[in-house]
């Protein structure tokens, strides 16, 4: 168990810069998720933590110790790969024991470790099979077992669930969460699935093109995304980003959004710092509204906007209603049966959850 500090780490292949000054630091027992689209450099960063890729610049410290020059085996880490990377010619037991044999763990201790891990993961009946005789979920468990017996300071997971079907993925997700609660080991986990990130992480690092966009707790990333990119990447359906003009009344602001053939929408009561109020008064901004922050206006509060629904998609627990706002398509998540295609509706917006972004830099305005 230990801390991990990634300090201005860079990586380039020739002239191609994959990682540009990445800095992340997490504490003992943290569950860090590296979240980002394909090709953004997540695996590269994970491999550098593991010692499988050289570091072009900066420093990586595990438990306070610089590991830049250490080979993987000296870093006290364990890793689970996307393809599981089970040794195909060895049985499950031999797979799990392989690392221990290299570290010259005694036969008795090996047997004990295998027993503990296989009980924990419920794979004791599979120990004498070859990887080719296992299902995807079972292979996944074996790969985790191989990592667990190492008792490392740091677990590294590279998209461990992406080769599983949807149902199994949810089950294994819970399993990994339980494992983390039980072992308490620090984990770095790579995924491009934002739901995995939200459910598992204690800290999320959202990456894009080799740059960390935001490093925070999952709920904070969801509620207060650092920029438009993060706002769109986290959450499904994505946050609606709509151009608006900011009007300032005293200590709060109102975002005014054009609607075709209807009066402009007015989202009032947005709180901002006085600096921001001053700077953006009368200026164009981007307003970010999560789909679930729309609701059908009731008598009590005046509606923020009146629109016509274009398309309505019932999903079961709720209904996604699509309409035009400020020249872009916007999705609202409403209770079932409250919206119908072509229907006119008055909606209100939860202003406390509304975020604003600078139209140029696309970063959040506080």
């Amino acid at each position, binding site marked *: 168990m230990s801390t991990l500090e990634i300090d201005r780490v860079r990586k380039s292949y020739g002239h191609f810069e994959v990682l540009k000054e990445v800095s992340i630091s997490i504490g003992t027992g943290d569950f860090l998720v590296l979240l980002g689209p394909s090709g953004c450099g997540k695996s590269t960063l994970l*491999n550098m933590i*593991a*010692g*499988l890729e050289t570091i072009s610049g900066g420093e990586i410290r595990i438990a306070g110790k610089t590991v830049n020059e250490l*080979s*993987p*085996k000296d870093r006290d*880490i*364990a*890793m689970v*790969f*996307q*393809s*599981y*990377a*089970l*040794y*195909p*010619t*060895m049985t499950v037991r031999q797979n799990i024991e*392989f*690392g221990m044999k*290299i*570290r010259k763990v005694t036969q008795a201790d090996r047997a004990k470790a295998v027993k503990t891990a296989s009980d924990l993961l419920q794979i004791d009946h599979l120990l004498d099979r070859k990887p080719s005789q296992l299902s995807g979920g079972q292979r996944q468990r074996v790969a985790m077992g*191989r990592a667990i017996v*190492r008792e490392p300071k740091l677990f590294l997971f590279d998209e461990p669930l992406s080769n599983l079907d949807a149902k199994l993925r949810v089950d294994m997700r819970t399993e990994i969460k339980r494992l983390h609660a039980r072992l308490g080991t620090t984990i770095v986990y790579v995924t491009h699935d934002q739901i995995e990130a939200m459910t598992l992480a204690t800290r999320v690092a959202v990456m894009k093109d080799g740059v960390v966009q935001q490093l925070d707790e999952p709920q904070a990333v969801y509620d207060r995304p650092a920029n438009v990119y993060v706002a769109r990447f986290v959450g499904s359906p994505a946050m609606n980003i709509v151009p608006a003009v900011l009007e300032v009344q005293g200590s709060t602001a109102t975002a005014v959004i054009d609607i075709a053939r209807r009066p402009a929408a007015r989202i009032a009561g947005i709180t901002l710092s006085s600096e921001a109020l001053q700077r953006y008064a009368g200026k164009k901004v981007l307003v970010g509204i999560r789909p679930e922050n729309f609701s059908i206006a009731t008598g009590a509060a005046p509606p923020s906007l009146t629109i016509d629904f274009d398309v309505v998609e019932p999903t079961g627990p709720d209904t996604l209603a699509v309409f035009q706002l400020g020249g872009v398509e916007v999705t609202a998540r409403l209770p079932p049966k409250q919206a119908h295609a072509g229907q006119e509706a008055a909606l209100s917006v939860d202003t406390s959850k509304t975020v604003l972004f600078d139209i140029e830099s696309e970063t959040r305005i506080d």
Partner: protein
Amino acid sequence: MAEALSQSGKARLGRIVIYTCLLIVALLYLMPLWVMVSTSLKPLDEIYGGSFIGLPKVVTLDAWRAAWSQACIGTECTGLKPYFVNSLLMVIPAVALSTGIGAINGYILTKWKFPGANFVFGLMLFGCFLPYQAILIPMARTLGLLGLAGSIPGLVAVHVSYGICFTTLFFRNYFVSLPDELTKAAMVDGAGFFRIFWSVILPTSIPIIVVSCIWQFTQIWNDFLFGVSFTSGSSSPITVALNNIVNVTTGRKQYNVDMAAAMIAAIPTLVVYIVAGRYFVRGLTAGAVKG
């Protein structure tokens, strides 16, 4: 109904034509083997009597015996036996060495890529297509300088030198399809360069080891150019000795002995082909089918 019938009749006719073509070609391909075997079992008089394609009237192993232990190669009348042994002594170390070296080269060129690894592979790849006439003279000189001229170890060295081009190609193309994560996992487990090769990579490569061994065995056993260029007399491999037997011009030509000798030279590779034909085909197409 009638139309459907004639349809299926046409289809059946088509099948018959296909099978007939295939069978005729198969017979044509088998004919030389049949002629070799049957001629080798006939007494010489029967052959000169004009029996070429037919079954032997009298079956005799005399020709085989003569080819194995009595036929004259040059001035020595020892039969093919010592040359068969020469070929074995040459082929076994050459196959083992070239396969082993090719395996480790393929491992390095895929799992431990260094800058320029692809260029190194390109250099070796061209070696597969080298017309050996282009190196014959320098190789003869070099073997002479090393004191290996006309010796079996010299031939082994030559076959290993050019064989590693092929074996490296085989193993590289096979290892490319093994996921890199496998080596990474082993590295995290603490295994080093040789340990990963020995415990993780090699056990997964039995098929390609077989392919490589068979390919090398066939190539080296069947080689004639190196044998005839770099050896002479009693150190020759079997192909050279066979050619000498066949090209003897004195006396009445003993076609049955020639054919028995050809069969003796052919049997090892034929056996390998029959036992492991699947792997043989893989080796054959390795240079052509993208890996």
